[in-house]
């Protein structure tokens, strides 16, 4: 069990009033808050060690380089990568996926090939593949999702038909940011590997919320963002298997990635440098390492259990509200710590505005999932998403504010 009071003390932002009420932050699916330790890592860096990395031999530059490469090693450990060189720093999940779609897609995709993804992807794991397919002449196909109690789960029977030898790459989300579905990622990788497809996991919603081991998952690439796992904005990771990275050309080029440059051309350093053109986001990478330390000091297994309990409690309490439709997998199915819901006749944005009046931070909209929304017959949902610092009392506050809103709009 998490000592949530102790944890809350680590997060300065939580201790504020919003519109006269204590802040109830239930928008963790969009971004997580930052513990003191992460903020301190930034301050420490800028007050003591700030310097450009890699190309410097003076004390600050060596300290900065050690801290930056130390963060890379720390993150490699966090996801159990075989080699720190498999951790490439990016701006976030979106950039990580674009890097694979551009560099890998450009080198490997051709007409007749199939890129496979699913119907429940975030726009960031959807549009880059539409673009890669268009640029190469490959075909993009989607694994459909199920309805009923397993709503939002992938149709694994359809996968049998879809996973042909023409499939060169299979990109799927670990956890759906709208439905809360937890996909059986290791199984999906195993089956993709069986037909020779490269796998890309969108771990934006999972890496900070549950134990994650890239070697146990057996994926080729895995993308995530620091800001959703208590790290700073502007930093994320592309994990790639070394054997694949060493054969890939860089997407962005410039300083820091080259062995030799003439006016005619350039040769590349190996990974990870090859993929990190320009001055990297040193401070935020270091602070992301601090976020790993923080989460591991709490325990991601504990966090996952805590998230699951809150989601369960939330679903039970929310289902007492008149006219609510809760989206995503029901009892039994694997489900993460977020709950999306909708009411007939009251729009998500009005709900979010009313909740904000009571200090409750929710998200309403299409959650960067427009095609999925359409399939669900909705234009938007309201989403409450939980993390290690949330409490059952906060769920009561959520239910209370929703009840007031419904009363106002529906009577």
């Amino acid at each position, binding site marked *: 069990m998490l000592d949530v009071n102790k944890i809350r003390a680590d997060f300065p932002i939580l201790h504020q009033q919003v*519109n006269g009420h204590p802040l109830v932050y239930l928008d963790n699916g969009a971004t997580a808050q930052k513990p003191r330790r992460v903020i301190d890592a930034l301050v420490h860096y800028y007050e003591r060690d700030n310097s450009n990395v890699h190309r410097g031999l003076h004390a600050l530059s060596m300290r900065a380089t050690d801290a930056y490469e130390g963060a890379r090693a720390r993150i490699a450990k966090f996801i159990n990568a075989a080699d720190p060189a498999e951790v490439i720093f990016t701006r976030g999940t979106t950039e990580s996926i674009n890097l694979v779609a551009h560099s890998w897609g450009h080198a490997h995709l051709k007409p007749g090939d199939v890129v496979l993804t699913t119907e429940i992807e975030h726009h960031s794991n959807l549009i880059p593949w539409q673009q890669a397919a268009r640029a190469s002449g490959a075909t993009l196909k989607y694994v459909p999702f199920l309805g009923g109690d397993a709503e939002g789960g992938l149709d694994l029977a359809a996968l049998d038909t879809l996973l042909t030898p023409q499939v060169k790459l299979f990109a799927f989300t670990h956890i759906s940011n709208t439905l809360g579905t937890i996909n059986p990622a290791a199984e999906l990788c195993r089956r993709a590997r069986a037909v020779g497809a490269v796998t890309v996991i969108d771990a934006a919603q999972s890496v900070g919320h549950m134990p994650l081991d890239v070697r146990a998952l057996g994926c080729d690439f895995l993308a995530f963002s620091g800001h959703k796992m208590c790290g700073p904005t502007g930093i994320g990771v592309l994990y790639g298997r070394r054997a694949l990275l060493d054969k890939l050309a860089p997407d962005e080029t410039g300083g820091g990635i080259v062995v030799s440059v003439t006016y005619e051309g350039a040769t590349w350093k190996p990974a990870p440098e090859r993929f990190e053109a320009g001055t990297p986001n040193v401070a935020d990478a270091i602070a992301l390492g601090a976020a790993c330390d923080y989460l591991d000091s709490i325990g991601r297994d504990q966090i996952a259990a805590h998230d699951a309990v809150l989601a369960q409690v939330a679903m039970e309490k929310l289902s007492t509200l008149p006219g609510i439709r809760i989206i995503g997998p029901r009892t039994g199915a694997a489900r993460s710590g977020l709950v999306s819901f909708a009411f007939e006749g*009251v*729009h*998500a*944005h*009005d709900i979010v*505005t*009313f909740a904000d*009046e009571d200090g409750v931070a929710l998200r*309403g*909209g*299409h959650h960067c999932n*427009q095609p999925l*929304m359409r399939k669900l017959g909705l*234009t*938007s949902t309201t989403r409450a998403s939980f993390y290690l610092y949330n409490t059952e009392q906060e769920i009561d506050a959520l239910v209370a504010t929703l009840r*007031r809103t419904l009363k*106002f*709009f529906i009577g």
Partner: protein
Amino acid sequence: MSADLTELYQQVILDHNRRPRNRGKLPTANRVAHGDNPSCGDQCSVYLRLDGDRIAEITFDGSGCAISQASASLMTTQLKGKTTADAQKLYDEFHTIVTTGQAPEEISDLGAFAGVHAFPARIKCATLGWHAALNAIKGDPADATTETHKD
């Protein structure tokens, strides 16, 4: 409920949200335009029958929050029978109302949207239908995406 929120969700707005006026496609329309609010997913289509420079008929269709739906509904009641020049003038006044909270005396129901100015993120909702209507008048087939406009 806070005073700001009561101001935002005035009776007239709730009423138009519950019972939208002039909702649905217009079979006789000779102009149509569509508006999107991409950040929140609100949508609004406006159908017009222009008779010279007079708006003979106007309807809307779409989905979105109470503010966007009520605003589009109220707009149709205000624009019907007006000239296109009047429509632009009314929009300018409406824009002033939702951005400053100042409603001129003579303006009646549009003044209900004065509360929007305290919620800057909702200005886009209130103006979505208006942008679509003005585009329809201009005969501009491009989507009226609220984020291209400086509201």
